[in-house]
């Protein structure tokens, strides 16, 4: 299941920008339900979200759906009165729609976080500003280095008999000492790194960086398809309307709206389609062997 993840980060960034943008800004209930469905499917297919994640999403959904009608009292159709405050159908429908939007965005972002690994973030930022990219990559390196050095210092302290997990005060003191050593060491070491960088001619010319991504034909096709589907979906949203207050008034099923929704559904399914294509190809290739 690697088809979508192997795309150039630029294509993936464009894809998430379009899907998230449409899901978050359209407020078209039909498209939102499709978006949520596809996002959940994508996250389940590649195992991004575990049971706890689904539970969290469910709680978020319920809270968001219930919150709106309890606080907002606009709307013409009063269902019942709660503490002398009207509980309206319009506010309830809006709450559910907003909850679908939030949950869909949550699932898409989980998928995004999984696809955008640190090296892909680097690749995208390196194009805008090489210096920022270097800063980010150094920071990422130091995060890993901190973990490793923390362990090394702690082990050394233990061997010296200076570190005790036995009681809380000693543990806190020991950790503080390890942290202090860690910071001093890394700062001092950082100066050496800077000297070494300058010694090797950093800053004397343009900096290039290696990235294992190239724009393939697949990327071009994928980006064009994404742009086209997004354009149709945007046109569809522009021609359909969803008014919540004061009375529900949905106009979603005109020809433009249907075309836009269809385009959006295809767009939401693209990662799944791409991954399924790769899986089928893999099966065909391995069955030939």
């Amino acid at each position, binding site marked *: 299941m690697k088809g979508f993840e192997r795309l150039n980060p630029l294509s993936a960034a464009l894809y998430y920008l379009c899907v*998230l943008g449409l899901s*978050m800004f359209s407020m078209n209930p039909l498209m939102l339900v499709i978006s949520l469905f596809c996002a959940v499917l994508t996250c389940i297919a590649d195992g991004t979200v575990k049971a706890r994640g689904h539970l969290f999403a469910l709680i978020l959904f319920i809270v968001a759906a219930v919150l709106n009608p309890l606080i907002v009292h606009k709307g013409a159709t009063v269902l019942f009165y709660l503490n002398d405050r009207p509980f309206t159908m319009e506010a309830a429908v809006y709450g559910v729609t907003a909850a679908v939007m939030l949950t869909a965005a949550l699932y898409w972002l989980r998928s995004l976080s999984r696809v955008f690994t640190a090296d892909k973030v680097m690749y995208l930022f390196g194009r805008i500003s090489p210096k920022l990219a270097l*800063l980010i990559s*150094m*920071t*990422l390196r*130091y995060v890993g280095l*901190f973990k490793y050095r923390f362990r090394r210092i702690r082990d050394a302290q233990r061997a010296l008999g200076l570190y005790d997990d036995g009681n809380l005060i000693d543990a806190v003191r020991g950790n503080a000492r390890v942290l202090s050593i860690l910071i001093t060491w890394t700062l001092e070491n950082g100066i050496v790194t*800077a000297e070494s960088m300058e010694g090797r001619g950093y*800053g004397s010319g343009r900096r290039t960086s290696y990235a294992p991504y190239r724009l393939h034909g697949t990327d071009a096709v994928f980006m064009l398809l994404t742009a086209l589907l997004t354009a149709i979906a945007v046109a569809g949203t522009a021609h359909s309307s969803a008014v919540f207050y004061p009375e529900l008034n949905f106009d979603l099923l005109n020809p433009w709206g249907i075309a836009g929704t269809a385009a959006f559904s295809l767009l939401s399914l693209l990662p799944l389609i791409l991954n399924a294509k790769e899986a089928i190809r893999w099966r065909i290739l391995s069955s030939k062997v």
Partner: protein
Amino acid sequence: MMVIQSSRLRTFLRYAIPFALIPALVAVSALVFEGQRYLIISLGIAVLALLLFTAGVERRNIGSRRMVITAIMTALAVFGRFIPLFKPITAICVLTAIYLGAEAGFLCGSLSVLISNIYFGQGPWTPFQMLGFGLIGLIAGYLSRPLMRSGLWLSLYGIVAGVGYSFIMDIWTVLWYAGRFDPALYGTSIVSALPFTLLYTISNVIFLLLLRRPIGNKLRRIKIKYGV
């Protein structure tokens, strides 16, 4: 430390963003969307503001030593975000800003959010968080003299930063949820976020007072010894 290399682009951004791009965005929101799409507009403004700060904070080139030290402090802030409940991220950004300057503080704040969100989940809130923490660092850098001298000012700054940050992030929560600014929802979200705001503010003050001497001494030593 001149994050954007081309000086022409930098100058362009420094003038175009506050005087042309942000007003244009606001005008578009008023005319085209009839004030309905606050979320997309505020997101755009946050991204533009981030660009403006990266383009225009400092005009001279500072060199690799300060850059490496900033990277280390940013990594420390990211590392600290893994501690459950009490997060030293603000304290580390503020201390970095005080000793290494406003620009380093801004970069430390915004980049530590960007990088730790790789682990915690990126989202449309990322630009707002980056702007929030970046500003906490930037302002601390400008106030470095009183903040360096007394722990009282430092804890006061920690409180203001904690409460201010939560209030600003609540605006964003309301915009995302309701699609427009709703005072009633804003009030509810402030109240429901109160435990977090409190925890956040307390951990700001605790960590600022706790880390002030040790990290401050280390950074001062590096500054004196190597002239960063």
